[in-house]
């Protein structure tokens, strides 16, 4: 019995995704089709790329609220530079700007030893302000709308360029997190930073590069978005952060750090996208859609909690461990 619960719990994202797809397929006519799949993937890509970056950060015990702002800023920079540099070099600069923003986040979090929730709240305001500043609050337009159209193309009937990129990124991340030493160190830092540090893992460096990675991926997502829409806008991505955090958490990654997986995030992103699409197909009002996604998020997290607590009575005592500052490195 416990075995079953454990298995169900481990693959809960996959199960929920399968459930969503089955139910939607039964209720919504024309839902299970290649077009839906390809377009659903494409729409998940922007959130997915940022979520990929955030997964690493959350596992390392940090959070980044500034992803949406970086997303906008990188897109703007890459669009503004198109006339002088050409599309591709400008895109690279955009991604670099994303990385740079990440480095600022990471540098401040590590250097000042501050809580990343508040710090990235601050940099979110700053990056967003810069985006408004350099564009004078007007959207900027790229040079070549035809290029956008190629970017938005669906290839092999399934992938757009960005959805393919998203899938590749998440698989690479999965391998990296599970198979490499550096990947395991990320878990160690998120689980107990002091202990990791004392064991010779450069916790500060792990966190720093985690922020750079998250920033770069937000940059990639932003640049791709600006390429696809031929626009860089200071208001882009303002609603993304919440959706991204929800997707990652639905995917089973813990906000407290130390636990999580890339494939889970993939599942979370796809689940949220599949759900949204299904509800949009049925013309469910936006506010009810919110209620549903909110409920899913809460339900999954509560399930996670209660099942773990039940596991405790049957032998393990996570309470002593999870709430013991010695074992959690002083985190409440």
């Amino acid at each position, binding site marked *: 019995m416990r075995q079953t619960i454990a298995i169900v719990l481990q693959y809960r994202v996959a199960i929920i995704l399968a459930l969503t797809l089955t139910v939607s397929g039964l209720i919504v006519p*024309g839902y299970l*089709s290649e*077009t*839906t799949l390809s*377009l*659903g993937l*494409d*729409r998940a890509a*922007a959130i997915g790329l940022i979520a990929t970056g955030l997964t690493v950060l959350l596992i390392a015990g940090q959070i980044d609220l500034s992803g949406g702002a970086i997303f906008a800023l990188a897109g703007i920079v890459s669009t503004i530079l198109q006339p002088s540099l050409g599309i591709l070099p400008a895109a690279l600069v955009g991604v670099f700007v994303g990385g740079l923003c990440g480095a600022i986040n990471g540098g401040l979090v590590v250097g000042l030893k501050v809580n990343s929730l508040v710090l990235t709240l601050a940099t979110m305001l700053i990056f967003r302000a810069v985006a*408004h500043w350099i*564009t004078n*609050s*007007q*959207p900027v*337009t*790229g040079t070549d*709308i035809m290029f*956008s*159209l190629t*970017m*938005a193309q669906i290839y092999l009937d399934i992938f757009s360029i960005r959805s393919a990129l998203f899938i590749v990124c998440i698989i690479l991340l999965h391998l990296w997190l599970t198979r490499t030493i550096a990947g395991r160190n990320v878990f160690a830092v998120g689980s107990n930073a002091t202990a990791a540090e004392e064991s010779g893992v450069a916790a500060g460096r792990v966190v720093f590069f985690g922020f750079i990675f998250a920033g770069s991926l937000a940059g990639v997502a932003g640049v791709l*978005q600006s390429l*696809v*829409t*031929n*626009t860089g*806008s*200071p*208001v*882009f*991505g*303002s*609603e*993304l952060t919440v959706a991204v955090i929800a997707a990652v958490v639905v995917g089973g990654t813990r906000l407290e750090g130390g636990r999580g997986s890339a494939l889970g995030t993939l599942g979370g992103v796809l689940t949220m996208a599949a759900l*949204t*699409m299904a509800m*949009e*197909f049925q*013309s469910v*009002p*936006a*506010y009810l859609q919110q209620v549903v996604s909110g409920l899913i998020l809460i339900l999954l997290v509560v399930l996670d909690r209660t099942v773990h607590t039940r596991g405790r009575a049957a032998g393990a005592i996570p309470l002593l461990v999870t709430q013991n500052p010695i074992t959690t490195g002083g985190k409440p």
Partner: protein
Amino acid sequence: KTVCYVTAADSHAYATPANVALQERADELGIEILNLSQDFDVQKGTEQLNTCVARGVDGIILWPLDPQAYIPGLARAQQSNIPSILINSPMAEQANQFIKSFTGPDVYEEGEMAADALSTAMDGKGSVVIIAGQAGNGTTIGRVGGFVDRLKEVNSDIEVLDTVNADFDQQKALVVSRDLITRFGDKIMGVYANDDTMARGFIDAWKEANPSEPTPPIVGINGQKDAFESIRSGEMYATIVQSPVEDGKLAINTMAEILDGKEVDSRLPIPLTVVTMENVNSVEPAF
């Protein structure tokens, strides 16, 4: 037939009546509406176009919040032989090849009309403040641009003291107005607000600061009921009626014609009326 309607938002002083009008008219016409709300998020809107295409609807009515961003989505719709039209806000020229028509008010013209009205009220001279909508939003850009360009065009002696964003939000307008009033005081001889709710915010701030003094001439846009009241009581000088009901109806009517295989004009404006003390009793408020 099913038509996908990607609207700006569910609950908004202007968008809500437009949505309702569109839905009601569609029911009359026997058209099923797939209603998607962007909640003022461009990103979301571009993604919702994907849903429309995947769903295989017969037509798309898009309320664009950005001049460019929706182009690939519209192109994708065209590829799938789904006709698209724009409602309420314009997009950049490049979008024209992907849409059948744009129905709705000319926001740039509204800016121009507002400039003319305010010029009349102030005898063509003095200094004003602009309370603008959301930064980067197409309507804001049009309404501010039209206003400023018009003043330049006629070589007006009216000076713009400052332009501040209040996001079409009454509370934000209230807060920024307080600051504007403290900062410029008597220098504010006229106010141009990008919509009537923000004009309301300014009036409240003014009454707080100078309960006894009359408000300077204020021009708003939209033609809401309470703006009509304010014009009657002299708190506001003018508003520009732009009826959301007309807006919504025109869009779905146009779409119905397209679905019937008729040709439609690429630009179908809704009527705009400047309302001042003179005609306030003969014009119907927009909502």
